C-alpha cells in the first residue's frame, strides 16, 4: 500500500475495485465501512459481484469481468473532458500526460457502456465523486491483478490516482491489499527471481558484489531466475529437475491444476517443507516438518509495509523445527555454515544489506509496536505514506493503456464466465482454516455462487450438486443461489481440494507479472442428477448465512 490502513477511515472518497474487502481483509473493511457509515464519506465499489461492501457504497459500478481498463479509462475520460483533473499536480509531479489524454479521449461513456456494461450515467457520477474528493484512496486486490492485463490494470489505477493528485498525500494513494500474512515480507526479502532483499536487482553488478561481500561468497548468479508460474512448465521442458518448496500447496492453488500434478511427479527430486502433509507434500521425496507461527520468533511485514514481531508462544509440535533452523542445517551440510543464534541475528544481517529495513530493530519493534519501511536509519520514524514529495523515479509517468479482452471469453459451448477467490470463513487452500471447527461449521464445503436467473435457466436448485466444466477440466460442486452473483458470471472459491477450482482456470499469464488469469475463464454448468430431493436442498439452504 502506498498509504496506511488507518488512513482509509479519513479519506474523503474510497474507490474499492477488485477487492472483496469485507471477506478477504475484514479488518481493513472495518476502516472503509467506518468511513462510509460513521463519517459519511463517499464509497465507490467497482466489481463484477454484488459484494457485501456494496451495501455501504454510494455507487456500485458492475463491469463485465476483465473490462477494468475500459472503465478506468472512461472515468479518466470524464474527468479530463470536464476539466476536473489536478492541473497543478500534473504539471509539477508527472510526465506524459498528453499521451494519456489522447488515449482516454476515445473512451467515451457510451463506448465504455458498450464494452463493460457500466451505465454511462453511473460512470459519469463515479468520475465526478472521485475527482471532487480532496483526498481519495484507491483500494484494490487480486480482482485487478489476476488478469492477463493485470499489470496494465494496476497502471491504469495509478493513472487515475495521479490524474487527481491523489498519490503522495495522507488518506489517498493506490493501495493493493496483499492476500497473505507475509507476502509483502517474502517480496521484500528477495523471495523473487530477479532481486535480492530490498528489491536490489540481481543483474546489477554493484548489488551482486555487495551481497557477495556480505555473504562471503563469489560468483552469485547474474541472470534472472524463473518465476513460480514458469518453473512448473519448465519441468516438462527439462529446465527444472528439482524443487524445494516451503509452505506452498501448488496442487490446489495453481491455475490449470491437472497440468501441475504430473510435472511434479516428473521431478528428479521434490522437497516439501510445511506444517501439514499437503496434497503437494504427498508427491514429495522428502517432507520436512516445520514449526508454525506460534512456535517461533521472527517478523512479518503486512500490506501497509509494517514490520511487526511474531513471538514464540508454545513449543514446536513433535520434532518440527522453525524453517530458519532447517535451512541453516541444510546449508551447513552443503558446506556453507549459517550459524545464527536466532532470528534477531538474521534480522541484523537483513538490516545491514537492505536499505529500506536498515532502521528497524527488534528493540524498536518491541517498544514501538511495528515500523513501516522505508525506515533507513535507527532514528527514522518509518514511512506512513509513500511518494510524498517525489516518486521513486522522480516524476510520476502516465502510461497510455488500451483495453484488451481477456484470453478466454464465453461462447456457445462454455457460455458462463467463471471467477475465483476466497470466502470469509476459509483461507487459501484450507490447510489452516479447514482445521478450525468454527470456520468449518460456517463454510463446510465448496459452493458455486450463481445468480437466481442462471439457476433457473439451467434448472438448478439451491443446494443441488452440479458439474462445472472448462476446456481444461471439471469439478463437482454444490450450487448456491446468491445475491452476490450476477447473471452470466459464477464464482467458486479455491479453498477445497475435493472441488479444486483451479482444475478449471486458465494458465494464461500477464506478460510482465506472470500472474495467471484466475478471474476470467469460460465454463459450462450442468445438473448432476435429473432432480434433487427437495428436503435436502432446503436443509442445505438453511445452513448458509452470514455476511460481513
Amino acid at each position, binding site marked *: 500500500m502506498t498509504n496506511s490502513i488507518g488512513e482509509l477511515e479519513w479519506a474523503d472518497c474510497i474507490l474499492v475495485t477488485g477487492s472483496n474487502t469485507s471477506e478477504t481483509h475484514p479488518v481493513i473493511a472495518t476502516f472503509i465501512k467506518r468511513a462510509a457509515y460513521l463519517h459519511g464519506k463517499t464509497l465507490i465499489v467497482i466489481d463484477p459481484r454484488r459484494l457485501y461492501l456494496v451495501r455501504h457504497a454510494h455507487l456500485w459500478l458492475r463491469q463485465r469481468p476483465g473490462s477494468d481498463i475500459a472503465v478506468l479509462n472512461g472515468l479518466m475520460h470524464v474527468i479530463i473532458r470536464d476539466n476536473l483533473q489536478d492541473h497543478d499536480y500534473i504539471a509539477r509531479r508527472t510526465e506524459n500526460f498528453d499521451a494519456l489524454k489522447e488515449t482516454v479521449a476515445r473512451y467515451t461513456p457510451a463506448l465504455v457502456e458498450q464494452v463493460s456494461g457500466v451505465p454511462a450515467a453511473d460512470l459519469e457520477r463515479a468520475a465526478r465523486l472521485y475527482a471532487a474528493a480532496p483526498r481519495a484512496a484507491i483500494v484494490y486486490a487480486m480482482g485487478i491483478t489476476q488478469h492477463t492485463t493485470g499489470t496494465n490494470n494496476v497502471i491504469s489505477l495509478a493513472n487515475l490516482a495521479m490524474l487527481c493528485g491523489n498519490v503522495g498525500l495522507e488518506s489517498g494513494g493506490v493501495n493493493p491489499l496483499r492476500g497473505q500474512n507475509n507476502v509483502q515480507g517474502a517480496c521484500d526479502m528477495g523471495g523473487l527471481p530477479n532481486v535480492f532483499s530490498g528489491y536490489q536487482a540481481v543483474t546489477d553488478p554493484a548489488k551482486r558484489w555487495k551481497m557477495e561481500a556480505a555473504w562471503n561468497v563469489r560468483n552469485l548468479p547474474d541472470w534472472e531466475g524463473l518465476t513460480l508460474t514458469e518453473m512448473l512448465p519448465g519441468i516438462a521442458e527439462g529446465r527444472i529437475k528439482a524443487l524445494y518448496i516451503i509452505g506452498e500447496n501448488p496442487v490446489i492453488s495453481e491455475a490449470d491444476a491437472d497440468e501441475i500434478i504430473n510435472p511434479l511427479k516428473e521431478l528428479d527430486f521434490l522437497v516439501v517443507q510445511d506444517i501439514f502433509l499437503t496434497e503437494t507434500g504427498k508427491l514429495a*521425496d522428502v517432507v520436512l516438518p516445520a514449526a508454525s507461527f506460534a512456535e517461533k520468533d521472527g517478523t512479518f511485514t503486512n500490506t501497509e509495509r509494517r514490520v511487526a514481531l511474531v513471538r514464540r508462544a508454545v513449543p514446536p509440535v513433535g520434532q518440527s523445527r522453525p524453517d530458519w533452523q532447517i535451512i541453516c542445517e541444510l546449508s551447513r551440510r552443503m558446506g556453507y555454515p549459517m550459524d545464527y543464534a536466532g532470528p534477531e541475528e538474521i534480522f541484523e544481517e537483513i538490516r545491514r544489506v537492505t536499505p529500506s529495513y536498515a532502521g528497524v530493530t527488534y528493540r524498536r519493534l518491541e517498544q514501538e509496536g511495528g515500523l513501516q519501511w522505508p525506515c533507513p536509519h535507527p532514528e527514522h520514524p518509518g514511512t506512513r505514506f509513500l511518494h510524498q514529495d517525489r516518486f521513486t523515479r522522480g516524476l510520476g509517468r502516465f502510461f497510455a493503456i488500451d483495453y484488451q479482452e481477456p484470453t478466454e471469453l464465453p461462447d456457445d459451448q462454455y457460455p458462463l464466465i467463471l471467477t475465483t477467490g476466497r470466502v470469509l470463513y476459509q483461507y487459501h487452500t484450507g490447510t489452516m482454516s479447514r482445521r478450525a471447527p468454527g470456520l468449518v461449521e460456517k463454510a463446510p464445503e465448496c459452493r458455486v455462487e450463481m445468480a437466481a436467473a442462471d439457476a433457473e435457466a439451467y434448472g438448478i436448485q439451491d443446494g443441488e450438486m452440479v458439474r462445472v466444466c472448462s476446456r481444461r477440466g471439471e469439478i463437482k460442486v454444490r450450487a448456491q443461489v446468491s445475491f452476490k452473483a450476477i447473471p452470466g458470471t459464477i464464482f467458486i472459491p479455491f479453498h477445497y481440494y475435493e472441488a479444486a477450482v483451479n482444475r478449471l482456470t486458465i494458465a494464461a499469464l500477464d506478460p510482465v507479472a506472470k500472474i495467471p488469469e484466475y478471474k476470467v475463464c469460460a465454463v459450462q454448468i450442468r445438473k448432476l442428477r435429473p432432480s434433487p430431493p427437495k428436503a435436502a436442498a432446503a436443509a442445505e439452504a438453511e445452513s448458509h448465512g452470514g455476511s460481513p
Partner: protein
Amino acid sequence: MSAPRMTINGVPVEFSPGQTILEAAQSAGVSIPTLCHYPDTRPTGACRVCVVELEGARSLVPACATYSAPGQVVHTDTERVDAARRMVLELMLASGNHNCLICEAGGDCELQALAYRYQIDPPAFGKPPGTTYYYEDNNSMIIRDFSRCIQCARCVKACTDRQVNLAIAVGYRGAETTIVAAGDQPYIDSECVFCGECVQACPTGALLDKHARFLGRVWERQKVRSTCPYCGVGCQIDLQVKEGRIIQVTGADAVPNRGRLCVKGRFGWHFVHHPERLKTPLIKENGSLRKADWEEALNLVATRFAELKDREGPDKIGGWCSARITNEENYLMQKFMRAVLGTNHVDHCARL
C-alpha cells in the same frame, strides 16, 4: 489560544474541545468507573455507572455522554455519586444470575471488579428463584448467556461502530429489553459473521469464546503478543497460553487493527495443535512416505541437491519461499538458493 479549562474535584484541568467529561477526567488522571463506554464507538450513556455531579445540573450526568465545556465544575466522588453508583450496581447484580464461581469471566469481569470496589452485598431485590434466562449454545464459536447480561449494549457498539457489521441491536422495550440478532434469532441464523468483537467487548461473562471455556482462568494464562497468520492486514493478536497450549486468541489494542479481529484471526488458530500436524520428517520409499529422523532426512536432501547441482548445473534447481514464513526465513531461503545452490530460481506465491 490556550486550551479551555474546567474543574474536576476542585482541581482546574485543561481539555480538548470535543472531549467528554470522562475523557477529560481520564486525561487529567482522574478515574471514573464505566461499563458501557468503549473506545472508538459513539457514547450511549447506557449503564449509568459513570454518573458524576455537574454543578448547575438538575441531576447527575453520565460522564461518558456529556461533553466538556469551559468553566464546568465536576465532582466525581461525592456521597451522592457513590450512592447512585451503588444503586446501579445493585440493580445490575439483581437483574441476572451473577454467580462468579464458575463464570468464565471471573477475575476479568468489570462488574465483579466494581461490585468489589463498591462493596455491594448480595442483591436485595433478586428475581424470583427459578427465573430462566436466554442461553445460546448452538454454534461452535460463541456462547450467549443472558443470565450475566447487564444490557450495557457494549456488544452492539462493538458490532455497529467498530466492525460496522450491523448484526446485533438492542431489541424490545422496557423490562423486555434485550440484545437481538436479526429479529431475535440465534447468531448462527443471523447476519452475524462471527468476528467475535462482541465477545471481546463484553464486560461480564454474557458473551463467551466457546473454545476457551473451562480451559483456564485469566490469572493462569500467559499472554503473548504476536501477528495474525492469516491475511496481509497483520493484525496484532494476543495468544493466550496455558501449559504450552493456545486456549484463546484476542485482538490487541495496537496498530493496525486497534483490537479488532475477523473470524479467522479469532477462531481459526486450531491448526496449531491439530493432531495431523507433521511431527517427523518423511522420506519416500517404494512409492510411500515413511517416518525418518532429522539426520537422515537432512543428509538425504543435502546429498541429492549437491549431486543435482554437480550433474545438471545450478540452474536446474528451483526454490519456493513462502508468504507464510517469517522475513528472517524468507531471507535465509533466498540466500541459501543463491549463495549455496547458485541459482536465482527463487519465487513464492505472491501471484496466487
